[in-house]
């Protein structure tokens, strides 16, 4: 037994040795002064990489821009970006490394709800400032007052969709949602029917990885809805809905309002309505600077996930300016707690949901030939 254990050790020696080296720093520093270290964990691979990758681009652009403009009170920032592969346990492990080994001042991310809830368990007791890309999730997050949220809670998403449905005078609504993200939004939406004066004509759920749901779409069509809400992280329901000639207007949540999804939807994308944030083809005045910078950097238009990455860094930088680079965790966290005009929307991080988005934060777009066009509609009365 001892011998075998020794053999295991020999086989492992290289691994063990290598693992003692610190993680490579992923970001370059440009200024000479000791940079302020920030951590970011996003999903660059795995199921929700479609959200994580644009967030990373926004973060990198913000870092570059901020440092070029003199950083935080003359001190540059350095963001260590890690990939959690869309998995909560990997996220926990990466955050542990960033917080305890690299001593980051604050954490940006994570991309998904599950990951955010998971890593909140590490940051909350330390009162470490965390700016999550997910909306406010389960009850436990209400007590985590240093975990701020850049995107709306699921209930707010649901309300944004239902407002539009109500105001287009539709009362019979069909729903197609997946069993992951779609289920989460649906759970917050289903009990709001009465409040918005709608009835569910047919609700169909499908697996996240499903490649064909024409039958589900046909079932929704058979219920003769006046509007259809699609909540999914896959382009398939949109394509299938069009294939079975589902002619009722399709309204969808901001998660699918990206160019990648639109491309994957093919010609089925036309006329889909999104309750979203950044319509780069026709930006609001406070969004223009970011859109121009992004377009110059990447040669294409950004969506709100890129903007969310940018806003996370910039709002954090503002708090750092106020609290000072050596502020204690709690001081930085309370410096965060105030209104902030971001690119995506106007936030109020002192709100009870640690994000302060409202129905007024939403912009509504309609897809026309693969482009998002602004609708003249606002959910706020």
């Amino acid at each position: 037994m001892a011998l075998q254990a020794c053999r295991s050790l020999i086989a492992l020696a290289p691994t063990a040795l290598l693992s003692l080296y610190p993680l490579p720093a992923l970001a370059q520093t440009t200024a000479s002064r000791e940079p302020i270290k920030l951590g970011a964990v996003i999903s660059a691979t795995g199921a929700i990489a479609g959200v994580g990758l644009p967030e990373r681009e926004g973060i990198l652009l913000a870092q570059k821009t901020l440092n070029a403009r003199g950083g935080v009170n003359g001190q540059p920032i350095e963001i260590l970006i890690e990939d959690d592969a869309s998995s909560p346990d990997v996220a926990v492990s990466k955050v542990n490394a960033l917080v305890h080994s690299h001593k980051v001042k604050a954490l940006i991310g994570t991309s998904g709800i599950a990951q955010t809830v998971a890593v909140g368990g590490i940051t909350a007791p330390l009162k470490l400032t965390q700016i999550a890309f997910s909306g406010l999730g389960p009850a436990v997050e209400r007590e985590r007052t240093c975990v701020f949220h850049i995107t709306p809670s699921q209930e707010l998403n649901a309300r944004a969709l239902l407002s539009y449905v109500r105001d287009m005078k539709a009362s019979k609504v069909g729903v197609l949602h997946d069993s992951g993200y779609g289920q989460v939004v649906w759970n917050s939406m289903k009990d709001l029917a009465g409040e918005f004066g709608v009835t569910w004509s047919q609700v169909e759920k499908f697996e996240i990885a499903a490649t064909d749901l024409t039958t589900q779409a046909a079932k929704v069509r058979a219920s003769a809805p006046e509007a259809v809400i699609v909540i999914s992280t896959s382009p398939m329901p949109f394509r299938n809905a069009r294939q079975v000639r589902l002619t009722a207007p399709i309204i969808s949540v901001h998660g699918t309002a990206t160019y990648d999804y639109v491309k994957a939807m093919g010609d089925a994308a036309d006329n889909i309505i999104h309750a979203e944030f950044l319509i780069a083809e026709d930006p609001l005045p406070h969004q223009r600077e970011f859109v121009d910078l992004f377009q110059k950097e990447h040669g294409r238009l950004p969506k709100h996930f890129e903007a969310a990455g940018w806003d996370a860094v910039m709002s954090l930088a503002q708090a750092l300016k106020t609290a000072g680079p050596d502020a204690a965790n709690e001081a930085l966290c309370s410096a965060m707690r105030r209104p902030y005009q971001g690119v995506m929307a106007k936030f109020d991080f002192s709100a009870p949901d640690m994000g302060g988005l409202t129905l007024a934060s939403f912009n509504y777009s309609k897809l026309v030939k693969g482009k998002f066009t602004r609708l003249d509609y606002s959910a706020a009365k």
Partner: protein
Amino acid sequence: MSASLVMQAILSGITNGFVYALIGIGLAVIFKGTQIINAMQGEFAVIGAMVTVFALEPAGLPYGLSILLGVISGAAAGVIIDRLFVQPMMRQRAGEESFLLLTIGLAVTLSAAVLYLAGRNSYLLPSWGEEGVIEILDAFLQIQALWLIGTAIIVVVGLRLFYGRTLLGLSMMAASMDPDGAATNGINVRRMRSLTFLLGGTIGAIAGILVAPLVAVNYHMGIALTLKGFAAAILGGLSNPLGAVLGGVTLGLLESLAVVGFPSGYKDVIALAMMIVIMIVMPNGLLGRVGRIGG
């Protein structure tokens, strides 16, 4: 429950069934020729489709040529994998589980490679013929689905003739069933195995290229395709390519009809549970007996 809904379920079931069938046929061909279950058959489809996508758009080649390139890349992938990995392991007389682990490892690697090279986006190919749908009883079938079904049938008939009527086909069968005996009869067993992988890769790539106009392909769809294809092949009986078609269509119909009656979240549970039960109860599949006599 309306007639049009049932009709729609049937049409989608058949379409999906032929997708599963094409993957299943590839699996059956490789199993027949090498006694290996190729857990990366779905990856061949992804490779074929992705090469076609990139030949068509950034490279700007005509569609026909792009398709040809896609098919060739699938075939090449098959041969390369055989030469690089399968043959050395055959020489070591590796066991069944080693080959399964190898092909799983390759599936993981290739999927990661596609992610690295092509990104995480989903890609659609244009339809083969004219875009559009056919309406039957207020239900819809995409014209591309007809291309898919037609090609699957041609592939099955072709394979049947190939294995039954040509010397090469017979030699490939012999090399697999009795390698030592075949070798003494002057058949180059190694070459036959390479050809089997070439054939498997080709069929896989064709499947991917046919599916891509219906379902957007992405780097991680290979494993799901493999599993459904395997279920189809098992249902029909692994020894018979025709079985894969029957198995695929049965599976597809069952899935889509189940959606009509049950909460649709359980679709995969039903399909997979059925696959397990069939393996236990009917080890030779629905066409097992026919398969054995007909070869």
